[in-house]
C-alpha cells in the first residue's frame, strides 16, 4: 500500500470526512441538476411565448392588412418578440436570470417606455437567491473544507500522535493529506460541472475557467484552514474560528458592501428618464407639429421633405414624436446605465479582496448571466428597435400601403451574440489571494513541524 492509499483509507474511514465529501458530491450534483432544470424551464417558456406570439402576429396581420393597409396601425399593433435564451453555462450560474426578463416584446414606438418593463416573477421565491452550482461553490464548499481541514494539525495533537507523526521519516505527510483532501473537494465540485457542461454543450474554455476558479477558491479556504489550524491549539477553537471567517467573508462583508454601494451610487435615473420620456411624448400633442418634426428631421434628415400632411393627425407625426421622446431622454439613459455599471465595477473591485465575491463575479461573467449580460440583451433590443423603426418609416413617410406581403418583411429579432468574458483581473486577484493563503498555510504547518 502506498502512502497515498493509506491516507485515502484513513480519510474515508473517518465518518465526518466521508459525510462531508458525500454531502458535497450530492449538493454539487443537485445544484447542476437544478440549474439544468431552470435552464430548460426558461427554454420552454421562450418556445411557448414564441408560439403564442406567432399566433398573435398572425391575428394582427389578419385584422390590419385587410382593407385599411395602414402602416401606422400595423406598427402600432404588431409587437415583435425578442428573446434571450440561456447561455450554455447558465446552468452553473443562473445569476440575475430569475429576475431579469429574457423575453420582451417591442414595437416601433418609444423604446424607453418599453425597455424596463418587468416580467412576472414571484418576489418571495426570488428573495433567497438561486440554488445553483455557483451557490454551492461560494457558500457551501468552504463549510465542507472547514469540516475536512480544520483539525489536520490540532486533531493529531489532541490524539497525541503529532510527535510521532513528525518523527516519521520521509516527511511530506501533511502535503499528502492536504493535497488529497483538496483534490477530492475539487473533483466533487468539478465532475458534476463537467458532466453538466457536456450535456449543455458548453464551451471548453469557459468550463475550464470555471473549474480553475473553483480550484483557486478552494485553495484559499484550505490555506486558511491550515493557517488557523497551525495557530490555534484546539480543534474546536479552530473550527469556530474558521466558521467565523466564513461568516465574515461570505455573509457580513458582502452585505455591508452591498449596502454601501447601493447608497453611494443611486440608480434613480431610471425613474427620471421614464418620467421625462412621458412628458416629452405628451407635450408633443400640445406643441406645433412642425416643432416635433424639426427635431425628428435633425436626426433623420432623409425624411425632411416628407413632413407635410393634411388634417389633424398622421401616423408619421406620431412615430416621429415617439422617437423625439426617446432622443429627449438620451442623456438620462446614459446616466442610468453609467450608474448601474458603476455598481458592477465596485462589486468587481470588492471581489479583489473578498474571494467569495471574486469567485461569484468570475463565474457569472463566464456564464454571461450577470448585469452585463442583461445590458447586452438590452442593447441588442435597442438595435433591433432601431431596425424596426426604420422599416416602418418608408411606408409612413411615402404613404405606402402596408399589405399582407409587407407583414412578412417586418424584421425579426435575432438573439444576441453571447457577451461572456473572463474577468482577468478578478481571476488574477483570486489567484494572488489563494497563493498567499496557501503559502501562509504551508508556512504555518512548517512551523509546527519545526517546533515539535
Amino acid at each position: 500500500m502506498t502512502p497515498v492509499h493509506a491516507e485515502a483509507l484513513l480519510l474515508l474511514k473517518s465518518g465526518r470526512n466521508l459525510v462531508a465529501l458525500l454531502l458535497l458530491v450530492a449538493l454539487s450534483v443537485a445544484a447542476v441538476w437544478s440549474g439544468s432544470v431552470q435552464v430548460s424551464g426558461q427554454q420552454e417558456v421562450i418556445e411557448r411565448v414564441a408560439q403564442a406570439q406567432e399566433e398573435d402576429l398572425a391575428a394582427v396581420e389578419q385584422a390590419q392588412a385587410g382593407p385599411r393597409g395602414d402602416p401606422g396601425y400595423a406598427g402600432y399593433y404588431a409587437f415583435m418578440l425578442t428573446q434571450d435564451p440561456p447561455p450554455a453555462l447558465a446552468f452553473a450560474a443562473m445569476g440575475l436570470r430569475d429576475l431579469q426578463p429574457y423575453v420582451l416584446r417591442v414595437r416601433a414606438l418609444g423604446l424607453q417606455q418599453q425597455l424596463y418593463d418587468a416580467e412576472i416573477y414571484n418576489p418571495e421565491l426570488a428573495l433567497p437567491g438561486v440554488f445553483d452550482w455557483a451557490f454551492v461553490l461560494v457558500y457551501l464548499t468552504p463549510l465542507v473544507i472547514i469540516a475536512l481541514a480544520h483539525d489536520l494539525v490540532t486533531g493529531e495533537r489532541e490524539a497525541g500522535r503529532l510527535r510521532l507523526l513528525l518523527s516519521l521519516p520521509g516527511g511530506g505527510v501533511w502535503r499528502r493529506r492536504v493535497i488529497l483532501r483538496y483534490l477530492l473537494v475539487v473533483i466533487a465540485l468539478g465532475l458534476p460541472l463537467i458532466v453538466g457542461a457536456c450535456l449543455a454543450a458548453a464551451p471548453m474554455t469557459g468550463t475550464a475557467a470555471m473549474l480553475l476558479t473553483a480550484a483557486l477558491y478552494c485553495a484559499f479556504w484550505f490555506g486558511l484552514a491550515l493557517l488557523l489550524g497551525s495557530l490555534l491549539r484546539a480543534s474546536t477553537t479552530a473550527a469556530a474560528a474558521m466558521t467565523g471567517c466564513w461568516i465574515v467573508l461570505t455573509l457580513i462583508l458582502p452585505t455591508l458592501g452591498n449596502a454601501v454601494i447601493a447608497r453611494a451610487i443611486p440608480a434613480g435615473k431610471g425613474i427620471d428618464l421614464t418620467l421625462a420620456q412621458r412628458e416629452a411624448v405628451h407635450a408633443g400633442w400640445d406643441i406645433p407639429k412642425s416643432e416635433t418634426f424639426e427635431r425628428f428631421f435633425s436626426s433623420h434628415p432623409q425624411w425632411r421633405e416628407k413632413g407635410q400632411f393634411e388634417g389633424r393627425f398622421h401616423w408619421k407625426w406620431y412615430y416621429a414624436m415617439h422617437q423625439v421622446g426617446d432622443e429627449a431622454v438620451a442623456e438620462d439613459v446614459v446616466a442610468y446605465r453609467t450608474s448601474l455599471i458603476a455598481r458592477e465595477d465596485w462589486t468587481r473591485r470588492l471581489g479583489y479582496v473578498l474571494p467569495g465575491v471574486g469567485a461569484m463575479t468570475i463565474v457569472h461573467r463566464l456564464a454571461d448571466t450577470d448585469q452585463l449580460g442583461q445590458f447586452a440583451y438590452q442593447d441588442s433590443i435597442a438595435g433591433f428597435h432601431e431596425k424596426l423603426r426604420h422599416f416602418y418609416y418608408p411606408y409612413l413617410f411615402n404613404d405606402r400601403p402596408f399589405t399582407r406581403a409587407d407583414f412578412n418583411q417586418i424584421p425579426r429579432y435575432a438573439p444576441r451574440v453571447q457577451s461572456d468574458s473572463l474577468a482577468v483581473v478578478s481571476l488574477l486577484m483570486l489567484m494572488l489571494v489563494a497563493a498567499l493563503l496557501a503559502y501562509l498555510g504551508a508556512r504555518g504547518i512548517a512551523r509546527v513541524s519545526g517546533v515539535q
Partner: protein
Amino acid sequence: MTGATLIAREEWRALLRNRAGLVATALLVLLVLVASFTSLERHSSIEADRAHYQATVDHAFDQQPDRHPHRMVHYGQFVFRPIAPLAFFDSGVDSFTGNIIFLEGHRQNSANFAEARQSSLLLRFGQLTPAFVLQTLAPLLLIFLGFASVARERERGTLRLMLAHGINGRELLLGKLLGHAAIALAVGLPAFIVLLGFALAGAAAWPETLLMLGGYSAWLLLWVLLSVSASALVQRPRDALAVLVGLWMVVVILLPRVLPEVAAARISLDTKIETEIVLHRELAAIGDSHDPEDPYFNEFREKVLAEYGVESIEELPVQYAGLVGIEGERLTSAIYAEAASRSAARESAQNRFVHAFSALSPLLAIRQLSMTLAGSDAGAHSDFLQQAEDFRYRFVQQLNRMQAELLPGISGEDPRISATYWQDIPRFDYQALDPLRRQEDILWPFVVLVGWIGGLLTIAAFAAQRLERIAK
C-alpha cells in the same frame, strides 16, 4: 430550582472567560446596531425619494394644459409605493418588487425599477437589516456559545462530578438552558430596543412591535434549545458543533434556497406576454366597437339609446364615444383582473408550497412572520398592486365620464376641456395593509415556532434523563 440558577450563573461565568465568545457577541451586537442604523438611513432616503417623486408627478398632472380627456387617460398617473415604517427592520421582498407603476387607460403596466434588477449580484448575498442579523447570524452565535455547554463538562469529567454531588440531570440542563436563554435575549436586546424605541416614538404600532419581539424571542430560544440539547446528547463538543453548524446550514441556508426552485418547477407562472396575448384575444372575442355591425356593441348602443329615451346617437345628450370608452374600460379591466387573480393565485400556491415546509425549516416561519409584521412581504405588495389598480380604474372612468358629459358642449375640431378639471381627479391615497388583519400569516409561523420549541423541550427532557444515567 436553586441548583438550576446556580448552574446558570456558573455558565455565565464560564462564558465571560470565553474571550472569543465575548468578541463574537460584541460583534453581533455591533452588527445589529450598524444594520439598524444603515437600514433606517436607507429607508428614510427611499421614503423621501418616493414622496418627492409622488409630489412631482402629482403636481405635473395638475399642470397639464386644456386637453381632450382621453389624452389625460394616456398621460396617466405614476404611483410610488410608500414603504412601511417597520420595513427598515425587515426589508422583506421590497427590493425585489417594482415600486413604481404607470397607470393609464386600458393597460395594466408592470411595477418597475425593482432594486434587485438595478443591483449587481452582491444583493443576493443578503441585505444588511436587523432581521438578516437576527435570522441568519444570531443562530450561529448561539451555536458557538452553546455547543460546548454540556459536552464540555462531559469531556472534562466534571459532569460526572456534578451529578455525583447531587445535582440531577434535569436541574443541570435547566440551568444551562436558563443561562443560554438569558444570553440569547441579551443578544436580541439591541434590536428589541430599536423596535421598542420605534413604537414609543409612535412610528410603529404596538401590537406589531410586540408580536415581532415575541416571534424573534421564540426564534432565538429555539436555537438555544437546539444547541444545548445537542450538546447534552453527543459525546464531544466538536461533534455538537459539527451537528449544529450542519443543521444551521440546512435550515437557514440550504432549504430556503432549494424549496423555491421546487415550487417554481411544480407551479409555473405565465409570462406577461402570454397574458397580454390572451387578453387581446378575449377582448376581440367580445366585439369591436369600431364595427357598426358588431353584435355586442349594437346591443350596447340599443341599451344606451333606450336609457336616454332617444332614437339615434346624434340625439344623445352625452358623447357616445365616451360611453363606449367607459364600457371598453370596464371590459378590459375585468379581463385584466381575472388574469391578475389567476397569476396571483399561482404565486400564492408557490408560496404556500414553500411555507408548508416551515415545519422543516423554521427560518421560513420567522421570515414570514417578520415580513408580514413589517409590511414588506409579498402579500403587502400585491395589496399595493390591487389598490393601484382600483385607483387606476376610478380615475380612468372619471376621465371617460368627463369625455361623455362635457365634450358635447364643446365645438371645434380639436375639443378640449379646461385644465381646472384635472384637479378634480383624485390622487393615489395608499392605505397600508394592516398586518393584524392577516391572522393566518401571523398565527401559523407562531404555531411552527412554538411547535419546534415544544419538540425541542421534549428532546431536552430526554437528554436530561440520559445525563442521569451517566451518574449511575
